[in-house]
């Protein structure tokens, strides 16, 4: 009989053998999380769920881009809302979040967890919420929409999630200004190349001399590619898959040149941060320990990311 403790133990022991590639690491994370779900389900008073449901993860997990350590981001979609179902999934959602924390995925600061009613709804309620988010266009709700768009099903049928994503896709087709709101939401990036072409590193603190990979390297790629995916109605979640799909369209071929290779290299750098002790550690790359070639490579990746980010903004604004 599995428990959260036994899953954690297994995870800590087995993790090192899955760290060769980002793909194997993410597949491993998926397995761990699915085990958590099974244990959580087992703890419910009802032996079987009262209706069909989908459990999805989002954030870096959703994009299949988790590093060694990652906090939890997930949500629930269930068939129908009624008193019995609402109670069951409330309890299940809370149990999942608790279990994920036990196993080593810390609680999410932004409260994007199945324990939060905002991220735990029936299909119909989800539809209403998504449209509400798109209508009111608040900064937070626009961000929630993009987070939702990175959702990937771990358990249950995939239709609920793809149906909901197409709600977003069709709404933005009819409301072109929505895309601009999406852009405004991710327009800020941490500039990491100085006016003299130098790498701008953290000036103080424990990460002195490091480059923040998350904000300056990953996010420009991730955000730009997600934006194009929303625009084109691509429901894949990993940045690599999205790039592949987008490259199938002529208009993006040039723009996305080198992007896939750069992104894969970036993921490798992140994997190299092996001695990570906590979530933050996995984001900081100390450039002092890099060789000259590596520094050059990182710079080129950062520049390419910034260029892509700027081009996508320009393109999307120009078309509307």
């Amino acid at each position: 009989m599995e428990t959260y403790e036994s899953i954690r133990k297994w995870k800590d022991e087995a993790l090192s053998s899955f760290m060769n590639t980002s793909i194997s690491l993410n597949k491993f994370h998926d397995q761990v999380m699915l085990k958590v779900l099974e244990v959580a389900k087992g703890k419910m008073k009802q032996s079987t769920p009262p209706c069909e449901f989908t459990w999805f993860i989002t954030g870096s997990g959703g994009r299949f881009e988790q590093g060694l350590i990652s906090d939890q981001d997930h949500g629930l979609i269930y068939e129908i809302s009624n008193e019995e179902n609402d109670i069951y999934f409330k309890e299940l959602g809370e149990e999942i979040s608790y279990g994920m924390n036990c196993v080593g995925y810390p609680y999410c600061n932004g409260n994007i967890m199945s324990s939060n009613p905002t991220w735990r709804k029936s299909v119909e309620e989800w539809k209403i919420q998504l449209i509400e988010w798109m209508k009111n266009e608040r900064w937070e709700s626009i961000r929630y929409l993009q987070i939702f768009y990175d959702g990937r099903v771990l358990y249950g049928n995939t239709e609920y999630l793809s149906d909901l994503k197409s709600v977003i896709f069709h709404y933005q087709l009819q409301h072109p200004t929505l895309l601009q709101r999406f852009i405004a939401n991710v327009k800020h990036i941490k500039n990491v190349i100085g006016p003299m072409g130098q790498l701008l590193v953290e000036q103080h603190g424990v990460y002195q001399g490091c480059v923040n990979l998350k904000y300056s390297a990953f996010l420009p790629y991730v955000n730009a590619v997600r934006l194009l995916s929303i625009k084109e109605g691509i429901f894949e979640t990993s940045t690599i898959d999205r790039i592949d799909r987008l490259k199938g369209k002529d208009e993006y071929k040039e723009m996305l040149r080198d992007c896939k290779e750069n992104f894969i290299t970036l993921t490798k750098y992140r994997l190299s941060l092996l001695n990570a002790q906590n979530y933050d550690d996995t984001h900081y790359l100390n450039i002092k320990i890099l060789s000259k070639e590596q520094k050059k490579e990182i710079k080129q990746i950062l520049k390419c990311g910034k260029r892509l980010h700027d081009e996508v903004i320009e393109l999307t604004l120009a078309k509307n």
Partner: protein
Amino acid sequence: MEAVQVLMDNLWVAIGAILVFFMIGGFILLEAGSTRMKNAGHVAGKTIFTAGIGTLVFWAVGYGFIYGDGNAFIGLSNFFYGDASAADGGLTPAVDFSFQVMFALVSLTIAFGGFAERAKLSVYVIFAVLFSAFIYPVVAHWIWGGGWLAEHGKQDFAGSTVVHLTGAMAALAATMILKPRIGKYNKDGSSNVLAGHNQVYTTLGVLILWVGWFGFNGASTFGVADGFLGFVILNTQLAAAAGAVAAMFTAWAKTGKADVPTTLNGALAGLVAITASCGFVAPWAAVVIGLIGGIMVVFSMQLFEKLKIDDPIAALSVHGTVGVWGTLSNGLFALPALSTDIDWGQAGLFYGGGFTQLGVQALGVAASGIYAFVVAFIILKIMDKVMGGLRVTEEEEIMGLDISEHGSYGYPEQMALEEAKLTTAATKEKFS
């Protein structure tokens, strides 16, 4: 005796320059106090470096565009003005320049009130250059530098129009292009209060401005002859006092509360209003001018709010609306002895001067206001296009300009706590 007076004239105007420059300190506190904590370091700090930019540009070309030999539109000599020459019957070039440059900086700082809490730092840099070269000097030339409005007999003793209205019109252009701050207006059109973070700063800022104004108006006599500066200071004090009282009672009558920021804006309104007329009107008129300014500022703030023009520092109302009133008030209250008799325009409507002076004042306000607005609007629109927007990104605006533009907070300890809350609200972490 005459030599002594020349030296005293120079000394008084030099003291005036120092007092007017200290007004920048008043603006720093006023603006920082009127804005939110996350922008405090930025709002305060940018005032220092825009004063630096403004000074260099004004030295290079600004002074020359105002006082150089040229035509009715602009002066075209005396660039890089100022040297070591001694006083020769009047002000030395260096004293004269020092006094003039401070007015340009005050006008520039007023203009930047309209940019508060959302413009990119680079926008401040570029607009400081362009404003100090092409906006302020042109209006100043028209009225003070022998330009076409001076020939009409326009009365603007210390700069209700030249300094305050010009700055406010640039602020208006900026406010319109920048659009309201995030969270200022709701979807249904109702507005929210984005309260400033420190009323004590704002209050102290107003007091410093008030003291500085004795130099602004008092030293605009350009000398100590007849002790006339005392009369100017008296009028200034009376109008400011009347403005503060009037605004406080107006706010109280309207809402039942004697709102502090409104009272403070009333004092400033009194000061702005009397700036044009301090050397032309009787003390009782100064009180009336200040009172009306204090009442006007309250309604003006309300009007801008309704028009969805988000003006965090109330620069448009204090310096714009009231700047217009101050200039027009000459046309009503100017004493014959201080206008017609000394050949500086005509007496006001209430002293038998008819509508002549009022007309001249109105023409001056309209021409200067339109020029400042249109040129600022065009410049900012071009900057908007070229620089990919004047405004910081939403995320930067939410995190605050202290961190986004400068990399450190004005209130580090406080903002560390706020940041933790922001992270939760904005779910920053979820993006990777």
